[in-house]
């Protein structure tokens, strides 16, 4: 494997990754409500960033540690942020799009007593 071939492979992988980033942004524009925007936006861009960093690794094979740790950081931090914002969005009653078929969480949230019990349980756990 000479340097030219490695750079060609890396460049193609990086372009595929950036296409995923573009796809995430298009999804962000086209989707009808916030939850679907989280689906398209943050997730496609996670894979896009991972592929871009992987492609960049072919250009500097000696820096393997930094690229691996960058991919790992993106992989472990992203689901936490998208889960947190989705939970907050449901809590402040961001409307679901009219195309939604089923909403199982609504029954759970409307039963106030259940929610209070859940709250108490979590509080006792954290203290």
């Amino acid at each position, binding site marked *: 494997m000479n340097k*030219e071939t490695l750079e060609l492979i890396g460049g193609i992988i990086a372009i595929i990754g*950036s296409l995923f980033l573009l796809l995430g*942004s298009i999804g962000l524009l086209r989707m009808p409500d916030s939850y679907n925007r989280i689906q398209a936006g943050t997730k496609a861009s996670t894979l*896009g960033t991972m592929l871009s960093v992987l492609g960049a690794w072919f250009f500097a094979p000696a*820096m393997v540690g*930094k690229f691996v740790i960058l991919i790992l950081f993106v992989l472990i931090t992203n689901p936490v*942020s998208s889960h947190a914002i989705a939970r907050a*969005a449901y*809590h402040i009653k961001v409307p679901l799009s009219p195309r939604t078929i089923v909403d199982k969480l609504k029954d759970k949230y409307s039963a106030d007593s259940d929610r209070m019990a859940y709250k108490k349980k979590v509080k006792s756990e954290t203290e």
Partner: protein
Amino acid sequence: MGNLLIEIASGITLLALLLGLIRFIKGPHKVDRVIAFDTMTVSSIALIVFISLLSGNLLYLDVALVYGILGFLGVVILARYFEKGL
């Protein structure tokens, strides 16, 4: 050859950033703006990596590393603010 490919890739990433900005301007609800911000942060990590390759200085990767570990904090803070948990 390799540099040309990376330039194309960073051009596409810039286009993604601009599309995210459109959602940030339009966003009917504040949650939509937060999602657009999150997407732009993640995309800019890729942009920083491309810049470090184009300028030939691999020490710039440390900046991308800081964004990788701290980028999610802003979104979590805003989410906790919205759900009255701060």
